[in-house]
């Protein structure tokens, strides 16, 4: 089992979610985060003072997947989250040791 963490532009969340559902992803978790990479921050001006804000709002999607679905999920994210400009984000793939469904107590792939 694997866990995918994807940092994406907030306004593309809906498109990414729909694409993931189309490849069979049943559920996901979303967090609002701030971050930066090669995309520069922005400057706000108040009464002549410039405030440099480096941390940009992004959205982090977390999905737990069986091994055989990982490539399709990555494709889905790549197709919908990419704009070609700095700030598109990153996808991280992590090994997942155990999954438990709280309602029933199921473990492993049947809990995904």
């Amino acid at each position, binding site marked *: 089992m694997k866990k995918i963490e994807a940092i994406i532009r907030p306004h593309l969340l809906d498109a990414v979610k729909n694409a993931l559902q189309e490849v069979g992803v049943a559920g996901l978790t979303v967090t609002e985060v701030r971050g930066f990479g090669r995309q520069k921050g922005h400057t706000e*001006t*108040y*009464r*002549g*003072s410039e405030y440099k*804000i480096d941390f940009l709002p992004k959205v982090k999607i977390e999905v737990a997947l069986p091994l055989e679905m990982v490539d399709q999920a990555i494709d889905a994210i790549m197709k919908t989250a990419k704009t070609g400009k700095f700030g598109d984000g990153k996808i991280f793939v992590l090994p997942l040791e155990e999954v438990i469904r709280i309602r029933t107590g199921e473990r492993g792939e049947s809990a995904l």
Partner: protein
Amino acid sequence: MNTRRILRILIGAGGGAVLLSLALPVYAQEAAAPPGISGGDTAWMLTSAALVMMMTVPGLALFYGGLVSHRNALSTLMHSFFLLCLISIQWVLFGYTLSFGADHSSLFGGLDYLGFQGVGQEPSGTATIPHLVFAMYQGMFAIITVALITGAFAERIKFSAFVLFSLLWATLVYDPLAHWVWGGGWLMKLGALDFAGGTVVHISSGVSALVAAIVIGKRRCYPDKALPPHNISYTVIGAGLLWFGWFGFNAGSALGASGLAALAFATTHTAAATAGLAWPLIEWMHHGKPTVLGAATGAVAGLVAITPAAGYVTVPAAMAIGVGVCFVCYFGLNVLKPRFGYDDTLDVFGVHGLGGTWGAIATGIFATKSVNPAGADGLLYGNASQLVTQLIGVAASWALAAAGTLVILKLVNLVVPLRVTAEEEITGLDLTLHGEMAYNFLEPGMSGISSPTLRESSYTPISATGDAASGD
């Protein structure tokens, strides 16, 4: 016992003695309204007094509150709200009499009206409104003047220090200055023109703010880690309320529902509108983008500048005053402040101190007896001496405000520290000084009231399924 504790006990005893003085005998009021009273004047002046009160709360409260970090929002609102109450009481007890009591050596008023004795429903002298109305109207000015200063030390002042400072400042700076300019003191005798408080309110609060900002010191986050305003929407709402209330502040200073009030209304509005345009235009040229904070700031600066001039200049002159103040204050904020590095957090000196100074000087330039025979002619009408008189008034206000504030801050510091601790400053004053938070976005389960009394009563808690739990 150490010095601080002794001084605290003395202040507590002094405060108690003042409150006990409320047991003074109450004088019987006159029965019917004497013939001197004008219904129209009185109605307008009561309204004006209420308008000026609104300028402090919620006007100034929101104007300032929106500019600070979210974790200091309540403490900033508290400054204005608390002062509305505190200075109201100080005014009744002794503020009014020190300002407008019988003149003593042209420097301060006597104790004739201590505790509002002798301030009744009949007019004072040749006035056309009840004495009470005049006294209440003036009281609202005292309140907002002290409240304006709070912008200088927002986000770091200790609450007890703020209370002590405010009480002393109102009594030792505002009351004498109001007496000098309006209460029959030496500046009034000299012929200095200040229609609604360019010197008494704006220069005094602005210069005091500068001194306070320097003495108390910068915020720890300033300038490298300063946070932008947390809610400019509040600030814009506050600016609108200030503009609306300013009609009471300026047009009400005609002390009647008259042609002069109409002039002051028109000059006030025109100056605000001109400045509200000019500031964003300057920003547009200087930074490439006009801002709504700039529009709000400009409008307020225009209102500040027209304050001393409102009943003495023509409406077109008000436009010139509005444009002029934008250049003066924009320079103050964008050049002087970063150059000298003082943390006048909410730009009290930059807007009120400098704006009021420009306004007082502009009065000496643009004043004309053709709109108000009781005024004077200014430089533009062939009379340079009025400008000199105005400069004397400006200098006197600067001096009293600066010296008074410095002395008072040192005095207060003998009793309490002026600043909060580093940790309190970082956490935020709302939580550390007031135990409150302005914005609580909690979900059920994240908090609950801990009360032993509730637990011991017959209160039956609701369980997670929504049913009342069975008995204990």
